[in-house]
């Protein structure tokens, strides 16, 4: 599904990712763990099409060159990024935003756009699953939401858009244990043999709830070790500093 070959990324002449390679097949869950500044967020930004990076190397998504696609085209093809810091957008109603987003993606894929009633039914169902306060859907997007609510809102969006590849950028940070469980259940319910996940985190804790197939340790822009879930436990024990 996703093939990253020798990806190099610089920002302001500073090298962030160095010959980074990763292969994600349909249905797999990969976790990337790494200390602050190791390049985790840069990776998720680049996969979503954020501008401002100098890039070389190759990224293929379903055998298509990702760099030829604009940010919104990547979303149309099924890439979703759950933001580490979801943005507050004053004046934009959460429901209207969700509907615009869902219909933009449906339209791009030649599917029928949902009308107001169909949309509301779906969003109600999904909010209930995620224990997301429905009243918030009529508020301005993320404005006045707590940290946990913002993250839940990201997972609600993910669940509405049912992407093929979901990138979760430190979704666990700022979540209490109950919210962490709800969010993890949301992710797990989307897991199937076609959907893949790339989970970026500092801590092993999230991986108790979302069992990864592979764990990679990212340091200084490079994967230094890959393994199964047990690698996360080892990392937690030793710490990043002693891992090298």
């Amino acid at each position: 599904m996703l093939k990253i070959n020798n990806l190099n990324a610089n920002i302001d002449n500073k090298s962030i990712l160095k010959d980074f390679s990763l292969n994600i097949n349909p249905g797999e869950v990969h976790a990337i763990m790494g200390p602050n500044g190791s390049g985790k967020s840069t990776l998720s930004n680049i996969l979503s099409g954020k501008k401002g990076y100098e890039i070389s190397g190759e990224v293929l998504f379903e055998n298509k060159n990702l760099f030829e696609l604009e940010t919104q085209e990547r979303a149309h093809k099924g890439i979703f990024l759950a933001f580490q810091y979801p943005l507050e957008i004053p004046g934009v109603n959460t429901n209207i935003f969700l509907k615009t987003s869902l219909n933009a993606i449906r339209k791009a894929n030649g599917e029928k756009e949902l009308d107001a009633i169909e949309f509301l039914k779906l969003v109600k169902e999904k909010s209930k699953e995620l224990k997301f306060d429905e009243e918030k859907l009529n508020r301005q997007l993320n404005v006045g939401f707590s940290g946990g609510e913002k993250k839940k809102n990201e997972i609600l969006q993910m669940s509405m858009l049912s992407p093929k590849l979901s990138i979760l950028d430190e979704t666990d940070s700022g979540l209490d244990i109950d919210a962490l469980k709800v969010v993890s259940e949301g992710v797990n319910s989307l897991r199937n043999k076609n959907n893949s996940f790339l989970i970026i985190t500092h801590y092993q804790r999230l991986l108790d709830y979302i069992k990864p197939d592979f764990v990679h340790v990212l340091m200084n822009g490079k994967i230094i070790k890959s393994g199964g879930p047990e690698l996360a436990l080892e990392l937690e024990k030793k710490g990043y500093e002693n891992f090298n």
Partner: protein
Amino acid sequence: MTEKIKIDFEKTLKNSAFSEKDIEFKMKYLNKFIESGLPNRKLENWKFSDLSQIIQKNIGELSFYNDYSIQNKVDTSIFVDGLEHNKIIFINGRVEKIDFSYEDHNKVKIDDHFEFRAESDNNNSLLSLNNAFTNKCFRITIKKDYSLKKPLVIYHTTNNKIKSKNINLKLEFELEQNSSLRIIDLLKDESVNNFINIFYNFNLKENAILKNYKIDKILNKNIRYLFNNIEQQSNSVSETFILSSGSNFSKNEVNCNLNGEYSSAFVNGIFSLDNEQQHEIRTIINHLVENTKSYQLIKSVLGKNAKSAYQGKIFVDSKAQKTDGYQLSKAILLDETSEFNAKPELEIYADDVKCSHGSASGSLDENTIFYLMSRGLNYKQSKELLINGFLLDVIEKITDPEIKNLVKNMIGFKE
């Protein structure tokens, strides 16, 4: 200009039936105007928009004579759909129709040739010009305890029969105790390169409510000046909303005198400008007695070479304790050539008051755009969503739900 204006003035007098007193009044103001000329940037009030230069550049020589003897045909297709309303229709500055058929006729009084009156404060040369050339000044009185059932839409239309003309309009509104009036000014031009000069005078008695929505939405190449003078007695409320978008140049001035306790004034405005447009709003709110309130919110969205300015003055008299005055302006600059000027002025002579002002401007946030695009929206959709979101809280300030929806539809808000 002096020779031309004198000739045009003589011609105007010859073709109208003004009384001797009117003529004397008009002569006085003509001379006053000739003395001062069109306002230019040397005047503090006009430092952001030099009208004299703008007219010179866009129109050249103005002609002040208008033939009001011929009736124009009213095009009914311009009427607002889906909203029952009273009408006043101006075509090229001539009043073609006044229609209050939804109202009780004993409660709305229309005077069509009351005597021209001199205003007390007049350093405004455009008011002098207006006084000298206005053909007819109507006064509309809303009687005590009467609320108009339907809004009044004032259609300001022009057609291509006029060019390089100066058009002057004047309306007076008297709102007696406990009365209320909603006015929508709709500007619709098919003419180009005219200078249109509009004066409204409102007199709000105790408990009267005035809501005035000015909609300049349709792109046109005219230059426009609109002045609202609002006098307010106790417990009266005035709400002014300005959508400033269509004309090539426009300046709205609101002068509001809060003369009675517990009176309040609200001024909210949107500038949505592109391609060399230049608009301004200038307000003066005079808090003259205790316990009065004013609130102003102005937002700008400015495209290439577009320029907007907001000069907001809050004056608090030494008698006006417990004044509550607020103003805020914000601008989104879409291009490096966009320009927003804010000049807030607080002049306070009382000590127990609450007054504040703020101003901010910036470009669209790229991170927010990225967030929206990562959800499948293209750049244009993302930008529109953000701009609509930015403007929404000004629209939400419209207190009349029917008119709020009308304005939303006009701007193209989707829900």
